[in-house]
């Protein structure tokens, strides 16, 4: 959408396509963020919590056995799975919760797909003494049971959403409806680089630490920068978190991996660039899976965290400008990578992250041994065990 004077655009993408009620809280959020993000005390506070509560920095781990087994380029894993609560989502949840607290909000609203963002938000809400309500599609509640139990234990209220596809998209609708109703008391803590401005920028800023750490770590371990970066892309927060600090490095090839589901041809997937076109969903103009008239279509992925019909607007811009290449991996390939990493490295990855691992292995095979790939291992797979084992048996993998 050509609207260049407007703020909150990444090239043609982004903006604020929201009901009028939300415009003033968005402005309030933007002002508070601009002020606090420059405030040394606030930065120290975030950094204190990241070190002592989240467990940062996370290691950059050379996957030696996986590299040997693959027989090509060196594969490094950025271990976001080792953060408290087990996924990168906590970097953003913590930052936004501290921001909300400074704004005088007492209640956090979150949506969740895989449940990792819901768990992260419930966790920081408990730690900071805030109220927490999490919207979750009933399909996702079914397939991510352990995380539902964790959220409840942490004191959050988990509200099942039965509308539409009963997944992440519908949970976001419900979270926004709650926010419209409770803007005075509540902060909407969105879990990815999605939604209206300023969210895509705020979430990216809280996640970019992943890439900043990885840069230092790879320099220490290899004495140079990597040749490739690979991350899975749901809304796009773990990927932009890894990529952002490297975008200016023209020699590094950066690849985002979407959910290819069953296949692109079958329509059962969540690959927005392969199957979608520009449109508006949840407050932002980006690539969207939709029918001819613009009705949002149902997506499919074995991984709840990637099962979403749109993608962060900054990714849409990176796709257009070709600074990042986007590809996709099927359910079956992801499940195979899930097993492979468990057996070769003793690491059980989240099904989301398994998409990135699958693509990295595919690439590494064709690359010389002196090249380096960094894969963002965005989360751990404990939450996925029941689902993964069920599908592995069903597909006879």
């Amino acid at each position, binding site marked *: *959408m*050509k*609207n260049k004077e*407007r703020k909150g655009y990444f090239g043609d993408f982004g*903006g*604020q*396509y*929201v*009901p*009028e*009620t939300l*415009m*003033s*809280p968005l402005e309030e959020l933007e002002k508070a963020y601009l002020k606090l993000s420059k405030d040394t005390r606030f930065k120290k506070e975030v950094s204190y919590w990241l070190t002592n509560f989240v467990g940062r920095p996370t290691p950059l781990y050379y996957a030696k056995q996986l590299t040997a087994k693959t027989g090509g380029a060196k594969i490094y894993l950025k271990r976001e799975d080792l953060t408290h609560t087990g996924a990168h989502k906590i970097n953003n949840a913590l930052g936004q919760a501290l921001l909300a607290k400074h704004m005088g909000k007492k209640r956090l609203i979150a949506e969740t797909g895989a449940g990792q963002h819901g768990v992260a938000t419930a966790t920081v809400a408990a730690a900071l003494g805030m109220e927490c309500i999490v919207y979750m599609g009933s399909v996702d509640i079914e397939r991510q049971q352990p995380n539902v139990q964790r959220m409840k234990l942490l004191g959050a209220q988990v509200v099942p959403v039965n*509308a*539409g596809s009963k997944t992440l*998209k*519908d949970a976001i*609708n419900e979270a*926004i*409806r709650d926010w*419209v*109703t*409770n*803007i*005075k008391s509540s902060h909407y803590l969105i879990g990815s680089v999605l939604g209206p401005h300023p969210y895509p920028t705020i979430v990216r800023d809280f996640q970019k630490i992943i890439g900043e750490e990885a840069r230092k770590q790879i320099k220490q371990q290899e004495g140079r920068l990597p040749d490739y970066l690979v991350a899975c892309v749901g809304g796009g927060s773990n990927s932009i978190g890894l990529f952002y600090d490297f975008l200016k490095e023209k020699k590094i090839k950066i690849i985002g991996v979407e959910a290819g589901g069953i296949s692109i041809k079958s329509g059962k997937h969540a690959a927005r660039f392969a199957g979608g076109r520009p*449109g*508006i*969903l*949840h*407050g932002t103009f980006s690539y*969207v899976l*939709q029918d*001819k*008239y*613009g*009705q*949002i279509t149902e997506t499919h992925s074995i991984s709840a965290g990637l099962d979403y019909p749109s993608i962060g607007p900054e990714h849409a811009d990176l796709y257009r400008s070709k600074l990042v290449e986007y590809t996709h991996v099927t359910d079956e390939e992801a499940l195979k990578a899930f097993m492979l990493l468990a057996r070769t490295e003793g690491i059980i990855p989240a099904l989301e992250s398994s998409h990135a691992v699958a693509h990295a292995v595919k690439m590494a095979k064709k690359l010389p041994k002196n090249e380096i790939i960094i894969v963002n291992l965005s989360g751990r797979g404990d939450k996925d065990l029941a689902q993964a084992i069920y599908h592995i048996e069903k597909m006879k993998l």
Partner: protein
Amino acid sequence: MSNFSAAFKKSTSAGRPAFMPFLVAGDPDYNTGLAMFKAIVPYADMLEIGFPYSDPLADGPTIQAADERALRSGIDTDKVFSLISEIRSFFKGPISVLVYANLVYQYGIDNFYKQAAKSGIDGVLIPDVPHEESELFVKAAKKHKVSPVFMITQTTTDARLKKILQQAEGYLYLVSVLGVTGSRGSLGKETFDFIKRVKKQTTLPLALGFGISSKEHIDNAAKAGIDGVIVGSAIIKILEANLSNPVQAAKETEAFIKELV
């Protein structure tokens, strides 16, 4: 004089706010939906018609369910336009539509307004396009002589209101409460203060919507200076309760509206 100002003038001189019922086009299907419109037009000064959408995030459960029913029956943007053309043949008052941004964008913004004008639509309201993002939409609206209608809420500051008033035509849609559409028990003092605040700043007619479901709501809003009322979820609930018997649905709706106007 635009169709809107003539209609508001008429109701004002009759000493009552204009009555503007809202239905989702094609709920629960094209023909039943059309019959519902036929039942309500004798009581309507204006009509508001919703384009069903898969993700109506400004709407509560009643309108969401209506959207789902209409979509399941196979309604699409082109069919909504032809339904409205049919309604035009038996209803002369202003017709305003409520449509989410992505449907307009995918139809082609200019093409959407062109088709809207051709179908006899007087005003287009897009609940997820605030004035900051409205440039292309307003441009197309003006080109095709369709009024760009805007929503304002209790959180709209006077500074924002001023900017919205520079673009708004037809009427201003005042959202009665913080929240989504759906019928509510009572309207509070904030709603009436809100109407009075806006009234001081514009001569554009003001229509109140979201949660209006009783004669008492309407009378109180009229006292605060409202020029029109939009009643949606309360009517759709009657339809929802009588889906297996459309004739009964129309009859009960008529009886309900008679109590309101």
